[in-house]
C-alpha cells in the first residue's frame, strides 16, 4: 500500500469527520474488549501463560539463526523448499518465479499480513496473475481496493450496509432482490462466490502464525476454514512468513496458542488450527504437490539486539489496537501503513523509517492499556518513547516543539529561576482570567482551547503560599 503515515494528522482529521467510520469503530469497542476480558477471567493461569509465551519467544529470538536453520532442514527433509528473502522485493520475485513455474493465472490467498507488507497483490496483478483473497474481510477490502484497517479484522472499518452495497455492485450476476440484510447472508454469498475460485487456482498462498523448528511445520489459525481450502486444493502451496514466526517445538506453539485467540477474539481457540508439513506424501488423501516457504526478513534482523527487539515477540493478535483510545478514535487507515495501532506505531518506523512514520509513536497518550493487555508482554509505550528519543536526537520533530521544550526545560532544570518566573507569571495569568476561573481562548494554547476551556491558575502558586506559611510559623515560634 501507499504509505501515508507522514499525513497522519490529516488522515486522522478526515477519519474523525467520517460518520460511517465512526459508527463502524463503535464495533471494535463493543466487540473485542468484553469478550477478551471474559476469556481471560475464565482462565486463572492466563498471566502465567503470558510469562511462558514471552520466554518462549525470547529464547527463540536469542537463537534465531539456529532455529531457522533447523526449520529449513526439516522442511527440506519433508520434501518442501525454503527460500530466503532479505527484502520485500526479493520475496515478491521469489513468489513470482514459483507462480510462473506453475503456470499460474489465478492464486488464492489466505489472510496474511506479511503479503500486505510486501504488497504482493498489486505486484502479482501487474504481472498478469490474479490474486483472490479468501478470508471474508480480506475479500471485502479486495473488492473495494482498500488495505486492511486492522490486523485480524481487516474490514472492521466498514458497516454491514457498506458491505451489502459492495456485494450488490460486484456480484451483479446474482438476482438483485436477494436478501443480504444479515451478516450470515453476506458470509454465505461470499462462500458461494469463492468456492469456484478455489478450483480455478493454481497456487495457494498463506501466511503463518507459527513456524515450528522441531517439525518443519507451518501453522495457521482461522475461523472460516478458508485457509485450509487455499492450501490444500491448488497444486502448489506457498507459505510466506517473516522470520520471527519461529518457535522451537510444537509444545511451544501450543502454549502460545492458548493466549493468542483469547487475546484476539476472546475465543478459547480459533475454529481451525492447521498444521502443514511439506507436500502431499504418497498415500495422503490430499495436499499440494509442491510446498514452498518464503522466509522474509524485511528489516527484522536489524531490530535484533536493539531496543526494539521485544517487538519481534508480537503474535499479531490485535489486542493492543482493540484497547487503544487513539485507534478507537481514528481507525486503522489513518496510520497510513500496513500495521496500525500501538504495534504499528512501534513496527512501522522500523520498516519504513522514523522520518516517514514519526507521527505514529508520537500519537499516543501513553495510557498503557496496550501493554496491559499484550499477551506477549511487549512494552509498547516504552518502545514508542525510544522512537521519540531517536527523533529528538536526529532533530526530526518540529522546530516550534523543540524550542518550546528547551525553553521549558531551562526553567525546570534551574529551580530558583523556575520559582521566580512562576511567581510572576502565575498570579498574572490568574488576574487575566478576571475571576472566571477559566479561559475560553488563550494565546499559544489554541490546541487546548479549540475544544475545551482551560482552567486558570487560582492566584499565587503553592510554593509562594507555603513559604509564607512557613515564615509565619517560624515567626510565631520565635
Amino acid at each position, binding site marked *: 500500500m501507499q504509505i501515508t503515515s507522514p499525513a497522519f494528522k490529516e488522515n486522522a482529521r478526515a477519519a474523525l469527520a467520517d460518520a460511517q467510520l465512526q459508527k463502524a469503530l463503535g464495533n471494535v469497542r463493543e466487540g473485542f474488549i468484553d469478550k477478551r476480558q471474559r476469556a481471560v477471567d475464565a482462565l486463572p493461569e492466563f498471566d502465567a501463560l503470558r510469562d511462558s509465551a514471552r520466554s518462549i519467544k525470547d529464547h527463540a529470538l536469542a537463537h534465531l539463526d539456529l532455529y531457522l536453520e533447523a526449520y529449513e532442514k526439516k522442511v527440506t527433509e519433508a520434501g518442501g523448499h525454503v527460500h530466503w528473502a532479505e527484502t520485500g522485493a526479493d520475496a515478491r520475485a521469489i513468489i513470482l518465479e514459483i507462480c510462473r513455474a506453475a503456470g499460474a493465472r489465478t492464486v488464492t490467498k489466505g489472510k496474511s499480513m506479511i503479503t500486505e507488507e510486501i504488497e504482493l497483490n498489486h505486484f502479482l496483478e501487474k504481472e498478469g496473475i490474479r490474486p483472490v483473497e479468501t478470508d471474508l474481510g480480506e475479500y471485502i477490502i479486495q473488492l473495494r481496493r482498500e488495505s486492511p484497517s486492522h490486523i485480524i479484522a481487516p474490514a472492521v472499518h466498514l458497516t454491514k450496509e457498506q458491505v451489502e452495497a459492495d456485494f450488490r455492485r460486484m456480484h451483479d450476476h446474482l438476482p438483485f432482490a436477494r436478501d443480504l440484510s444479515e451478516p450470515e447472508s453476506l458470509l454465505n454469498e461470499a462462500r458461494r462466490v469463492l468456492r469456484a475460485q478455489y478450483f480455478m487456482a493454481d497456487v495457494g498462498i498463506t501466511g503463518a502464525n507459527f513456524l515450528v523448528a522441531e517439525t518443519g511445520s507451518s501453522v495457521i489459525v482461522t475461523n472460516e476454514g478458508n485457509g485450509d481450502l487455499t492450501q490444500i486444493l491448488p497444486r502448489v502451496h506457498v507459505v510466506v512468513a517473516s522470520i520471527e514466526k519461529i518457535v522451537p517445538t510444537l509444545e511451544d506453539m501450543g502454549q502460545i496458542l492458548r493466549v493468542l485467540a483469547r487475546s484476539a477474539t476472546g475465543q478459547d481457540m480459533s475454529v481451525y488450527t492447521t498444521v502443514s508439513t511439506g507436500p502431499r506424501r504418497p498415500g495422503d488423501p490430499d495436499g499440494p504437490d509442491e510446498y514452498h516457504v518464503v522466509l522474509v526478513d524485511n528489516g527484522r534482523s536489524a531490530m535484533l539486539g536493539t531496543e526494539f527487539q521485544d517487538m519481534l515477540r508480537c503474535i499479531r493478535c490485535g489486542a493492543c489496537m482493540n484497547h487503544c483510545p487513539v485507534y478507537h*478514535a481514528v481507525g486503522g487507515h489513518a496510520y497510513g501503513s500496513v500495521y496500525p495501532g500501538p504495534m504499528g506505531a512501534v513496527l512501522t518506523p522500523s520498516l519504513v523509517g522514523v522520518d516517514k512514520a514519526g507521527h505514529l509513536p508520537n*500519537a499516543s497518550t501513553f495510557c498503557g492499556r496496550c501493554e496491559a493487555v499484550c499477551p506477549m508482554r511487549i512494552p509498547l509505550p516504552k518502545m514508542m518513547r525510544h522512537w521519540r*528519543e531517536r527523533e529528538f536526537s536526529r532533530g526530526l520533530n518540529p522546530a516550534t516543539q523543540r524550542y518550546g521544550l528547551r525553553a521549558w526545560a531551562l526553567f*525546570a532544570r534551574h*529551580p530558583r529561576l523556575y520559582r521566580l518566573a512562576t511567581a510572576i507569571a502565575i498570579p498574572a495569568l490568574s488576574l487575566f482570567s478576571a475571576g472566571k476561573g477559566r479561559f475560553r481562548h488563550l494565546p499559544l494554547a489554541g490546541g487546548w482551547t479549540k475544544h475545551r476551556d482551560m482552567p486558570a491558575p487560582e492566584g499565587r502558586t*503553592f510554593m509562594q503560599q507555603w513559604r509564607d506559611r512557613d515564615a509565619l510559623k517560624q515567626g510565631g515560634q520565635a
Partner: protein
Amino acid sequence: MTEDMMKKPRVGLFVTCLVDLFRPAVGFASVKLLEEAGCEVEVPMAQTCCGQPAYNSGDRADTIAIAKNTIESFEEYDYIVAPSGSCAGMLRKHYPGLFKGDAHWEARAAAFSAKVHELVSFLVDVMGVDRVTAAHSGSVTYHDSCSGLRELGIREQPRRLLATVSGLKIKEMRDADVCCGFGGTFCVKYPDISNRIVEEKTANIRAAGADTLIAGDLGCLMNMAGKLQREGSDIEVRHVAEVLAGMDDRPAIGRGQG
C-alpha cells in the same frame, strides 16, 4: 522533642508542577492528609517538575538533569509523596532506567524511587489509613487515571477512602479505567484526537449521574473539567485529596469566583 515526634516518618511532598501553578489547594489538602496520618511533612523548595514533558518528547538529556535535581532535593526523606499517579509513576518507575550505565546515579535513583508513593495509595498501603473524617454531601464518580492505575496499581484505595466520607455516594461510570485523552503534550500535539477521546469520557461521566467528578491527577482533571465546561455541564470537578481532606468548600476546578 517527644519520642512520638521522633518516630514520625518524614515525608517530602512532591507538589507536582500543575498543582503548584494551577491548584494549590491540592497541595494543602495533601499536607493535611499526611499530617493527620501521622507524618511530618516538608516541601523542598528546589523541586520543579518530574520531567515527563521532556522524557515523553524523547529529550533524555534534560530529563536526566531534572531527575538529578529531584533526587538531590528529596533523597534525605523517609518517603516522597506526590498527589499524582502520573508524576509518582515517573519518579518511581522511570527514574532508575534513566541512569543505566552510570552505577553511582543508578544506585541513588533506585534508592530514591523505592521511597516514592502516590498520595492516596501511600495513605492506605503504607500508613494504614482506613477512614477519613471529611464530609461531602452528594454523589461523586471516580476516574482512574492511567499511570496510577496501570503503573502503580491504584484502584481500590481511593474508592475505599471515599466510601468513608460522610454523606458521599459513589456512582461508578462506564469505562472509568479508559484514558481521558490528556496524555501530557499529546493533547496539544493531536488536539482533534484528544478531543474525540475526552468527548467519549465526558459522555460516560454525564451518564453516571453524579454531581462531582473526582480523580487523582490534575492534568486529567483539567482536561475533563475544561471539556465539561465547554459542553455547558455543571458537574463539579475536584482532586481526590480535596474531598478526602474536607477542603471542598472552595470553587471547583475551573470555576473561579465570578
